[in-house]
């Protein structure tokens, strides 16, 4: 009893119209949940609700119905017994007559009709009764939008789920639907109505059925919507676009062939409308209708369809000139082009579908068309391309497209088109069908080929080639029977090839090159040759020697016409296409002649230096040839490697400088093109490893380097190539390369002279040699190459004898060998933390290595300052003192600082703690006070100060090294370990220290160095991090401007600082910080307006001032006279860009008042 009262209160809440909608929804859910859990039967519920369902108060009755319907809606997947379902259906069916409760009744019907078989479905007879009641009682048109939508949904449900039940209703049903969907305007309902027509047609497919008899009326209702005009904004709540509606209507149009007598005339009429959208839609609809209505019905429209399509194609073909279409094809597809494209698609469908007993009606129409005939005559007489008007170009492309579509459709179609047009084209091109000899009048050809005819001819050739590619099975009668397109083509192809070839040869030599005409011709001549050479095996219309002639002509273009880049590229591209085609079809027979004529020729061209062709083009050609396939590429690789190694020998042993100039582009080509191709095609590993080992063999065999080999850029290039070779290899190959390199390294003079164990005394001996003077060139090359191998390794690749390596690299680092420092940094960065215990190097951990490196770096500084070495590691003061006792030869210290910077970078990127130690060390260099020591130490001469300054400067620059991204190593490409946000972390840990030191520093030189470090840190750190700290940074930023603007050398730094400032100015937080320091900021910016050394600084300073004019008026107004005075002077700046900015700035500050 208790329960009963609780759910009754829910009913009352729902029926009471004063309740909130949310509460009502909650009560529906509550009751539905009860029924679902079987705590309440539907029967009991209905009985309880009896009063609400039968009362004479309309509003209460409607609410009651709605409640019952909503509950049923929630119970769609709950099994119900058939008695309940049928009594409910009966009830709702009867209630359809009660218009006051119609809303609820519709929802209830829908909920019942949607039930699936396994949970108790509505019976067929009941469904029919429901449909009858619906048809007699519901006036769809007079209902509101939501109810209409429900009505359509009910109909859709009936048609989809109970087709056999409603079919018996026949005409009544179709008539009812017609009445319901007439004059519908809401897009959501329209989607449903279009769909309704589609299923209706499926229910009554019979020619004597109801749809057939009502087809006229139905189509009359539908046709009013065509073409869909829908301008509703996209961002509305029902999410229906014009395309959706159009597609739905199209399906409705195509749903039954009974629409044919009405639809086709309408579509053809709309095709001639002036609205582009209508045209486009009619073409799409027509295309679909042709496919759906069937040949029998459509055949009688063939003539009309063709003439309409013809008009569309001729009037809307693209009229851009050749060159622009070939370059910028497809980036913006205008409506015009779309229409032409749709029309051509439609034509193709028509040709394919409309063939009956009288063969190919459309094709005969095309072939016999007078317009085509006339236009063909007109355009095929166009001489030069540039001479033809836009209009005739449009005609030309239209004719070309129509012919190509019709010949592409079928073999027989192709033959008909060929019979009609091909001989005439040949005639215009002055090619005679002499199959035996090439005795046509090509020898004394004076004028170039007729352009129009050339264009059409190539279109035809291309389309019949496509035809042969698409037809899978080879039909032998095409090649045997006389008068097919193939035999015609075969007759003409020999002479045609010769005509094209000689015309192509003539292009280069004649004066045509000067204007573009020659090029336009050449495009099609080359394309023609290419197409003729690319017929699949059995269809090849040309004989073997003609085929070879094509290749010879194209190759001669490549080898001789290199001054004309356009022609050259065109020919190379054509050759590559031909080659790829051969490769794709595994045509070994033609592959042989391709190899013989093309590949051999280009290879020999490359091998002989005597030709006048520039090296860059040769490399282009040969690397392009390589892209055809693996076999070709391996040949190219061999060739390039040989060339590289021989040139390498020439450079290193004989000191031949010219060879170096060739070697650099060779290496570039190898690493950029060949390796990139190998990487994508998957055989990178094998190629790269072999070549890397080859280089190392070479290095091993050359024992004496020529003295003069000081070619920095060559060494850089070789190093880069080596890095790229190693970079892409898998772990095993990498470790092979490393071993090889290591063994070569051991053979170097500096290592072989001494024992391999590094005793401290020996180390010292090494260290005392101040620079690389005593290192032979061979050794330097080997060390650099070894360093580049190390830089590019994967983290997991094991290194042999890590201890020795890091010792050695440290030594070189101290000698100022930059690659060694970078290699060491890479090693540290990728150091395996959980290294395998079985490894020889396992005893040597990262921490130990770092200790060693740091110790030796400090040692170098100390030993060079002749101090005894005592406990080094926790002795900041001692270190400082030794730093301050300045050595005359400071290069050690500088080297050590640069090396530390790189190692710090490596550590920072992997997030290692020791980076702090390094940073503090660098900071101490910055803070060391030279004066104090100078006073005490009389022997310190004047240059001591310089030395100190340079040391402090390099310590400051070390921060730049640590924070900036490097192209050379320690980046993503070379497998560095990179912790996210490592820059931010360094920035936030360093900033407080730097800021406080700047504040405390008294000495000018120290302050300059600190500011420099500060500037590096904030300009290299991510802007977002800097802006967040704006309040603390801005005062020091201004200090840095003052300090750094003294020296010309700092101009780039000043510029990057200004960029930071402008970043701060763009941010809301930053603006506040600027306002607090407004006086200093403005006075510094004004000073920078006249910065003499860099235009960008002046320009950016003025831009910053423009941005500042937007700050709160009260704060900046006092500065106005000052700014205006400065900017007026900037109007007379010597650079134009600065003057323009000054004009804007002045206006901004003047108009502020």
């Amino acid at each position, binding site marked *: 009893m208790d329960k009963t009262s609780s759910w009754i209160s829910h009913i009352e809440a729902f029926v009471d119209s004063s309740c909130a909608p949310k509460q009502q929804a909650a009560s529906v859910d509550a009751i539905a949940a009860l029924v679902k859990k079987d705590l309440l039967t539907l029967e009991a519920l209905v009985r309880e609700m009896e009063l609400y369902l039968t009362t004479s108060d309309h509003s209460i009755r409607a609410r009651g119905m709605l409640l019952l319907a909503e509950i049923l809606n929630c119970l769609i997947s709950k099994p119900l017994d058939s008695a309940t379902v049928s009594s409910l259906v009966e009830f709702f069916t009867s209630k359809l007559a009660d218009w006051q409760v119609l809303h609820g009744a519709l929802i209830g019907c829908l909920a019942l009709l949607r039930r699936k078989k396994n949970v108790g479905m509505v019976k067929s007879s009941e469904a029919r009764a429901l449909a009858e009641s619906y048809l007699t009682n519901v006036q769809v048109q007079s209902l509101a939008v939501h109810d209409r939508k429900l009505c359509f949904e009910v109909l859709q449900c009936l048609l989809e789920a109970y087709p056999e039940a409603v079919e018996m209703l026949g005409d009544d049903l179709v008539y009812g639907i017609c009445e319901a969907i007439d004059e519908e305007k809401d897009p959501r309902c329209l989607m449903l109505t279009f769909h309704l027509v589609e299923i209706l047609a499926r229910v009554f497919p019979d020619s004597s059925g109801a749809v057939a008899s009502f087809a006229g009326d139905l189509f009359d209702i539908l046709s009013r919507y065509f073409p869909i005009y829908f301008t509703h904004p996209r961002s509305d709540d029902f999410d229906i676009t014009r395309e959706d509606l159009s597609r739905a209507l199209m399906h409705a149009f195509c749903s039954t062939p009974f629409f044919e007598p009405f639809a086709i005339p309408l579509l053809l009429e709309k095709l001639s409308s002036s609205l582009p959208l209508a045209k486009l839609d009619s073409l799409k609809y027509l295309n679909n209708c042709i496919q759906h209505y069937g040949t029998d019905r459509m055949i009688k429209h063939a003539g009309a369809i063709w003439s309409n399509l013809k008009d569309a194609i001729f009037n809307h073909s693209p009229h851009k000139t050749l060159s622009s279409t070939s370059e910028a094809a497809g980036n913006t597809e205008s409506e015009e082009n779309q229409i032409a494209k749709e029309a051509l698609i439609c034509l193709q469908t028509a040709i394919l579908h409309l063939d009956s007993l009288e063969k190919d009606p459309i094709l005969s129409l095309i072939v016999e068309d007078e317009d085509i005939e006339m236009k063909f005559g007109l355009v095929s007489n166009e001489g030069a391309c540039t001479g033809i008007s836009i209009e005739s170009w449009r005609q030309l492309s239209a004719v070309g497209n129509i012919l190509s579509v019709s010949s592409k459709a079928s073999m027989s179609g192709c033959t008909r088109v060929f019979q009609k047009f091909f001989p005439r084209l040949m005639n215009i091109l002055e090619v005679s069908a002499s199959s035996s000899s090439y005795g046509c009048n090509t020898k004394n050809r004076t004028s170039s080929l007729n352009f129009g005819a050339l264009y059409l001819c190539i279109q035809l050739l291309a389309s019949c080639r496509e035809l042969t590619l698409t037809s899978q099975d080879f039909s032998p009668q095409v090649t045997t029977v006389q008068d097919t397109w193939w035999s015609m083509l075969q007759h003409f192809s020999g002479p045609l090839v010769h005509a094209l070839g000689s015309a192509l040869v003539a292009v280069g030599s004649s004066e045509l090159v000067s204007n573009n005409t020659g090029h336009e011709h050449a495009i099609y001549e080359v394309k023609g040759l290419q197409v003729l050479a690319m017929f699949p095996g059995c269809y090849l219309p040309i004989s073997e020697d003609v085929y070879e002639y094509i290749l010879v002509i194209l190759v001669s273009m490549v080898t001789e016409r290199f001054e004309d880049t356009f022609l050259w590229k065109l020919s190379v591209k054509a050759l590559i296409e031909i080659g790829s085609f051969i490769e794709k079809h595994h045509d070994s027979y033609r592959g042989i002649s391709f190899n013989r004529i093309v590949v051999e020729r280009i290879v020999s061209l490359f091998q002989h230096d005597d030709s006048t062709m520039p090296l860059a083009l040769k490399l282009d050609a040969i690397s392009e040839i390589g892209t055809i396939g693996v076999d070709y590429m391996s040949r190219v690789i061999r060739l390039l490697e040989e060339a590289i190694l021989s040139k390498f020998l020439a450079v290193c042993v004989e000191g031949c400088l010219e060879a170096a100039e060739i070697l650099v582009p060779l290496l570039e080509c190898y690493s950029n093109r060949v390796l990139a191709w190998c990487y994508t095609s998957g055989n990178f590993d094998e190629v790269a490893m072999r070549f890397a080992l080859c280089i190392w063999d070479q290095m091993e065999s050359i024992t004496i380097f020529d003295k003069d080999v000081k070619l920095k850029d060559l060494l850089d290039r070789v190093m880069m190539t080596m890095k790229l070779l190693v970079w892409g290899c898998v772990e095993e190959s990498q470790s092979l390369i490393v071993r090889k390199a290591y063994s070569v390294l051991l053979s170097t003079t500096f290592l072989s002279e001494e024992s391999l164990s590094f005793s401290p005394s020996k180390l010292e001996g090494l260290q005392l040699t101040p620079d690389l003077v005593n290192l032979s060139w061979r050794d330097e090359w080997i060390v650099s190459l070894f360093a580049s191998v190390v830089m590019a390794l994967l983290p997991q690749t094991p290194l042999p004898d890590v201890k020795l390596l890091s010792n050695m690299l440290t030594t070189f680092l101290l000698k100022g060998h930059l690659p060694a420092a970078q290699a060491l940094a890479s090693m540290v960065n990728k150091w395996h933390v959980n290294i395998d215990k079985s490894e020889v190097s396992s005893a040597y951990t990262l921490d130990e290595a770092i200790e060693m490196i740091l110790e030796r770096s400090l040692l170098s500084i100390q030993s060079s300052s002749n101090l005894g070495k005592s406990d080094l590691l926790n002795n900041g003061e001692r270190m400082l003192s030794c730093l301050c006792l300045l050595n005359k030869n400071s290069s050690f210290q500088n080297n050590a600082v640069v090396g530390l910077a790189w190692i710090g970078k490596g550590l920072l990127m992997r997030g290692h703690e020791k980076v702090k130690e390094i940073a503090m060390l660098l900071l101490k260099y910055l803070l060391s006070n030279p004066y104090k020591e100078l006073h005490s130490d009389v022997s310190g001469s004047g240059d001591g100060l310089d030395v100190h300054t340079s040391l402090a400067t390099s310590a400051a620059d070390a921060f730049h090294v640590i924070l900036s991204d490097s192209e050379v190593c320690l980046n993503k490409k070379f497998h560095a370990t990179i912790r996210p946000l490592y820059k931010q972390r360094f920035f936030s840990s360093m900033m407080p220290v730097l800021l406080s030191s700047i504040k405390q520093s008294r000495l000018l030189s120290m302050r300059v160095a600190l500011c420099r470090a500060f500037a590096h840190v904030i300009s290299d750190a991510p802007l977002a991090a800097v802006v967040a700290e704006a309040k603390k940074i801005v005062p020091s930023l201004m200090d840095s401007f003052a300090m750094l603007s003294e020296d010309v050398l700092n101009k780039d730094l000043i510029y990057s600082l200004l960029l930071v400032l402008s970043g701060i100015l763009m941010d809301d937080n930053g603006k506040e910080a600027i306002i607090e320091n407004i006086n200093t900021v403005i006075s510094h910016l004004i000073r920078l307006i006249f910065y*003499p*050394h*860099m*235009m960008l600084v002046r320009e950016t300073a003025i831009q910053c001032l423009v941005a500042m004019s937007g700050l709160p008026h009260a704060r900046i107004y006092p500065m106005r006279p000052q700014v205006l005075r400065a900017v*007026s*002077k900037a*109007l*007379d700046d*010597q*650079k*134009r860009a600065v*003057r*323009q900015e000054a*004009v*804007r700035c*002045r*206006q*901004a500050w*003047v*108009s502020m008042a």
Partner: protein
Amino acid sequence: MVTGLINANPIVYERKERRVRSAPTDIDEYAEEPIDQLEIFDHIRDIKDPEHPYSLEELKVVTEDSVEVNDRHSYVRVTFTPTVEHCSMATVIGLCLRVKLLRSLPSRYKVDVRIAPGTHATEAAVNKQLNDKERVAAALENPNLLEMVNECLAPTFA
């Protein structure tokens, strides 16, 4: 005051394409780029006509050739052509030109604004008015006139 537009139907010409100065790749930081014809023309081409929403360039009131400049002698002369002979807006256009150049050029420059000979009914009077410092200064004291000038100049600072 005349009601209605003085030239209701002006001929609108096409804007010339902005000549992009070829950005020198290796900039000599200290080389001087003197103020030239195009730079002056760039300053004034976008000034809006006082009665139409077109720029002076589109109405061919000023062209690049109508600018004479001599940077060494700090001298500029702009000759403009009113669209109709009796155009009472000629003085306003001239004033706009003068104000714009005053604001955009270094103070060492002497600016001379003139009507092209034979293109205006009261040519001499307008020329005199435009090149009289006192009268220009007085005109700019007039808030209505100043507002009008500023409105015409607004597009040039975009």
